[in-house]
């Protein structure tokens, strides 16, 4: 037996370069308010929350295998809770934002326990029914009923006395939420938690044999995603200043749109939602004069992707050119001891058995 040392590589040169580019992008985005271009700022806020929602759905569906069509239940619920905290609790909108997220997480727990009885496509439609129930409930309760409600002017002034100031604060919050969503997914997947999640995704039975509790794992992902989605929903309706059951629980905008973004960009890859969001806004902004055509194109593109390149646009590029911006896998390299020459330089069986990761 020779003593070998191992290096677990967790980054590539490309990924380090990409990190630098990402940080510079965020810096540039932080400078946008200086131009005073309010139209661009509003568009960037929108891009931010679509990206955050897409990251969350990707974590849910791409990594935990939970194909939900009912995430609008949590974004809509989060939006409503923000209005409830502000109107009935007298809280400031910015404090209400995380509180709305926490409440969405709590509400998602019973939903998950019920829905986890369904598998595959039945889970998908079951979550959709749940979101419809959420919508019908908000038609009845005294938060504006079917016609909806607006955020009181006093609460809007609470954020900032001027429109410019308010838009700046919402802009920075949106940016923070977008960066936060990526950081959350990235750090989650790089942890032991992410390792267990990938194991379950690749082979649920084999992962159970090494002691991974897939039910608890999926529950954890579902609740985390619901909470974050709820917070994003709160931000969306804080920007819109108005909420109604129809707009809050709209399956087309908050579910279909998000699902297509992830699938087109590349499901099960953190880079996917970035590419998907870019495609979504490119289509939407260029066909703005043709009504609903961007949704038709988006639907057709998703069908074509599923037929010819299931890994999505980013997956297609990444496999071709070996690109990775967010490395979440571990590559094991052996380092040869200097004093002893060894004929083989691959990873031997000993190397694998010596490499022990703590059980999840």
């Amino acid at each position, binding site marked *: 037996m020779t003593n070998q040392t191992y290096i677990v590589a967790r980054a590539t040169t490309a990924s380090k370069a990409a990190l630098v580019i990402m940080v510079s992008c965020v810096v540039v985005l932080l400078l946008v308010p200086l131009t005073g271009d309010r139209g661009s700022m509003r568009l960037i806020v929108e891009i931010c929350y679509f990206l955050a929602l897409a990251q969350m759905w990707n974590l849910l569906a791409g990594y935990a295998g939970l194909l939900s069509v009912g995430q609008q239940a949590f974004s809509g619920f989060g939006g409503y809770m923000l209005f409830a905290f502000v109107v009935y609790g007298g809280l400031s909108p910015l404090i209400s934002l995380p509180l709305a997220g926490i409440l969405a997480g709590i509400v998602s727990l019973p939903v998950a326990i019920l829905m986890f009885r369904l598998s595959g496509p039945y889970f*998908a*439609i079951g979550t959709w029914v749940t979101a*419809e129930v959420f919508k*019908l409930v908000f038609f009845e309760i005294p938060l504006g009923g079917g016609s909806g409600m607006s955020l009181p002017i006093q609460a809007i002034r609470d954020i900032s006395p001027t429109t410019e100031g308010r838009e700046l604060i919402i802009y920075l919050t949106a940016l923070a939420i977008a960066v936060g969503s990526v950081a959350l997914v990235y750090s989650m997947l790089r942890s032991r938690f992410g390792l267990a999640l990938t194991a379950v995704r690749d082979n649920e039975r084999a992962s159970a044999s090494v002691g991974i509790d897939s039910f608890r794992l999926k529950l954890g992902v579902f609740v985390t995603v619901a909470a974050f989605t709820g917070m994003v929903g709160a931000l969306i309706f804080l920007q819109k200043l108005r909420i109604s059951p129809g707009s809050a629980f709209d399956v087309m905008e908050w579910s279909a749109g998000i699902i297509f973004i992830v699938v087109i960009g590349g499901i099960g890859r953190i880079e996917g939602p970035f590419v998907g969001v870019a495609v979504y806004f490119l289509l939407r902004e260029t066909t703005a004069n043709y009504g609903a055509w961007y949704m038709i194109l988006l639907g057709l593109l998703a069908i074509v992707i599923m*037929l010819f390149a299931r890994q999505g646009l980013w997956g297609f590029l990444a496999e071709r050119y070996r690109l990775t911006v967010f490395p979440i896998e571990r590559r094991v390299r052996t380092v040869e001891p200097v004093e002893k020459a060894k004929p083989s330089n691959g990873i031997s069986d000993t190397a694998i058995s010596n490499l022990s990761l703590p059980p999840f």
Partner: protein
Amino acid sequence: MEWISTLLQGLLLGGVYSLFAIGLSLVFGVMRLVNIAHGDLIVLASFTSYVVVQALGVGPLMSLVIVLPTFFLFGYLVQLLVLNRTLGDDMLPPMIVTFGLSIVIQNALFDVFTADNRKLNLGPIETASFRLGNDIAIGIYPLAVFAIAIATIVALQALFYNTKLGREFRATSDDAEAARMMGINTKRVFAVATGIGMVVIAIAGVLMGVRTTFDPFSGPVRLLFAFEAVIIGGLGSIWGTLFGGIVLGLAQAIGGQIDPQFQIMTGHIVFLVVLLLRPTGFFPKVQH
């Protein structure tokens, strides 16, 4: 007396819902495919009939002569050219493809017909009814729809158990791999099954279009009702879908009687309760 009338209405409404559900159940039974565009295809059938009625000046029932073969062919081709390529262990592709189809249908219909409500017109028979005793009136049209739902189930039952095609359906449903080894062209079997599913969808779409108004975005609600009826009845059981449809119809009618606002909600809640207590539905039988 008012309640008996409500229950009868719920029962008859259940006939419509089971018509919605049969197509979904059939396609799932044969190829384990859940069609998210199901509701939008029902609405597409209503619109197709509407166009035929406008163009040829015939009644909605006569329009079936054109709508039914068109839908069979459409289903056959979509399955053969698109959906067959997506079937496999991974359930994501068929789901996304049918979801994409759903969005395309909705927005294309919206682009052509705008968001206006439409209705198919059958004339005075729509509102005709006969009396049962002094207080209870039964609509002739809803009763006819209920009868058509039962006739459709009987016809499919006969198709499944008494024909060569039905044998191929059942064999493919049980084990597609083995069926292929026995010389069954499963891709064609899938295409024919979807074609037949689309015929049922077209019947449901036209009959429903006479009963209530429709617009380009009424599809998802129809999908959810169909899905709920299938789950309540039990996966894969054709008579189960009739039972599921009736349970859903009764739940909605009773909820609506208490407060019109609760009609849809009661249906959803009964579905969720069934899911909680009997996740496999009442007559589970995945293979036909």
